[in-house]
């Protein structure tokens, strides 16, 4: 009996991993471990490797370029780790694979909501969705809010769920690249804390599905409490961006030539730049919530474009040929 329980406990991490893998539609390539130059080791030449990539069984790696123009692969596996809690000064990975199966069983199992499940959700984490909405609006629990004035928690979750479904992806697919980035920042911080200043690792950019992405991370004073009844807290500002490729630029210039220069600039920014906080990463995986139209929103289309999960044409199609209209429209329809 004790043996069986012990075996089950030992298998638990593997079960969790498999559960998460089931929710991914976007599969990662694999390479043998010997090909990877694992951080903190670096090489001068850019290795010919896919990034992100799976190796060592189930570990996930991405390729980084350092400030000294060297290259290194970092283990950024999305997994549940030690607690992540600013209040107690705990900086583990937190519950990166946890999905809210109590309120959204179908979502927890498949990584995507059904409209019926959302229409029936009148409470999340024991709080009424109306209360969550009031707290989430601007000048509620935060100045900028988690949704716009004319949006609700359910209208936002529902609309983004439709987008992700149209893209043929799942919410864990969306959260994964963001967690990959976040985990690398986490690794860099922990590694550097134990180093002399001159041997610190200074990551400058990273490679994801053939794109090179740059970034900036900043902390702030204090922390933001979650609008749900959960342990999620936020304090950081994450910015990630990349240059659109010539093909992407040409495609947009052709398909959206009717836009003004200002509108075109905004559209290109939406497809190539992201600003958010770490709370959203957990929110996406746990509830399928990307925040409404505010400065912290992580639009699923932005994630798919930035991290190269879908081509510009596929994104254009998913927005019914109007990406600009898609980005500016607020989500005001509720599932009922």
């Amino acid at each position, binding site marked *: 009996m004790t043996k069986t329980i012990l075996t089950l406990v030992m298998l638990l991490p593997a079960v969790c991993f498999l559960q998460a893998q089931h929710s991914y539609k976007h599969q990662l390539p694999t390479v043998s471990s010997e090909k990877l130059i694992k951080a903190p080791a670096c090489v001068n030449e850019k290795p010919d490797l896919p990034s992100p990539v799976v190796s060592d069984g189930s570990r996930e790696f991405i390729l980084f370029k350092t400030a000294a123009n060297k290259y290194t692969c970092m283990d950024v596996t999305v997994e549940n780790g030690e607690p992540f809690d600013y209040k107690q000064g705990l900086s583990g990975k937190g519950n990166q694979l946890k999905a809210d199966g109590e309120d959204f069983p179908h979502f927890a199992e498949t990584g995507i909501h059904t409209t019926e499940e959302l229409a*029936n959700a009148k409470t999340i984490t024991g709080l009424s969705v*109306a209360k969550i909405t*009031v707290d989430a609006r601007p000048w509620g629990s935060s100045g900028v809010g988690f949704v716009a004035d004319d949006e609700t928690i359910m209208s936002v979750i529902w609309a983004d769920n439709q987008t992700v479904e149209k893209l043929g992806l799942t919410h864990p697919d969306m959260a994964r690249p963001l967690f990959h980035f976040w985990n690398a920042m986490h690794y860099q911080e922990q590694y550097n804390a134990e180093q002399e200043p001159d041997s610190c690792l200074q990551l400058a950019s990273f490679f994801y599905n053939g794109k090179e992405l740059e970034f900036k991370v900043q902390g702030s004073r204090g922390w933001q409490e979650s609008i749900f009844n959960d342990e999620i807290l936020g304090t950081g500002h994450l910015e990630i961006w990349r240059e659109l490729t010539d093909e992407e630029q040409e495609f947009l210039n052709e398909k959206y030539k009717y836009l003004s220069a200002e509108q075109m600039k905004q559209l290109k920014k939406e497809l190539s730049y992201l600003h958010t906080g770490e709370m959203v990463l957990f929110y996406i995986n746990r509830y399928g919530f990307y925040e409404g139209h505010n400065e912290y929103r992580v639009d699923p289309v932005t994630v798919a474009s930035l991290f190269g999960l879908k081509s510009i044409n596929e994104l254009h199609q998913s927005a019914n040929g109007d990406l600009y209209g898609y980005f500016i429209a607020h989500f005001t329809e509720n599932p*009922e």
Partner: protein
Amino acid sequence: MKKGVITAISAVLLIFSLNIRAQNQQSEIDSLVNKMRTAGREWNTYAEPLIKIGEPAVAALIENARDTSLSLWNRRIIMTTLNTIHSEQWVEPALEILFDENEAPEIRNRTTAGLSGFDLSHVNTKLWELFSGFENQFYKSNIAHLLLSADTAMAYRAFYELYQTQDGHIQRNALQKLAFLRPGESTNWYLNALQGEDWMTANLAIDSLISASSLNADLLLSVYYLPDIDEEVQWRIVYVLSQRINSANIPFFCEALKSESWLVRTESAIALTKLNKEEVLKQLVVLQNDSAEVVRNNARWVIRELNNSY
């Protein structure tokens, strides 16, 4: 005879050792206070032992708190240490600094934490004048708190003004104090706050109304049915009533289920699931066939939830 000599020698030794101890403590105080005069971010290292020493350290700290040749930072940390010790010796010097117009406003404000809780009735008019003269909302709020132990009528006036003119923490705190000073008016204040725009203040009103020992629901409903009332205010009322769990409100919740506001009808649906199943079902039957789809859906959701809960 021998016994008497031993007792006398012991007494002398005791006095001698106490004297040495007092001298040691005084030199420790002098050394710590001296470090506070130039301390930077490490100031807690010196403040903590001074706080532990308590009363004996107060006189030396006061002398330095008054020393205008020190930087604002060092005077501030000395005052903070005094405030934490919270000695009666500090009251008059602190009042002198508070009322001294030549002092920097942040230094004057710093004294308020050390004065709280002491009888300040002898300076009530001066405190009121100070409250009226300050423009900074945080300084005003601190003086209003001092008025609580100086003159409750003036304190009420001060918090009334803060409630009407401020928002966020200051308004929320003012509401709390208004209800504390005039318990008979508290329900009216909370109803007023429910209709305000400030999230923090409205939340305090919601929590207070939910936990009130008795509440006249009609008062809340009279606000709910005001013409042009904001949907968020209506939601707050539904939320308060839903948390108090009273079957007498079933007809109201059924009516609210037909509201045009998503916030209101969603909260009403949740409220109905907490009430007596038989009574709710009886009144919901009609709504299952309502002409509006959202009403029918919400009614069916409530029925399903109630049936699943048994």
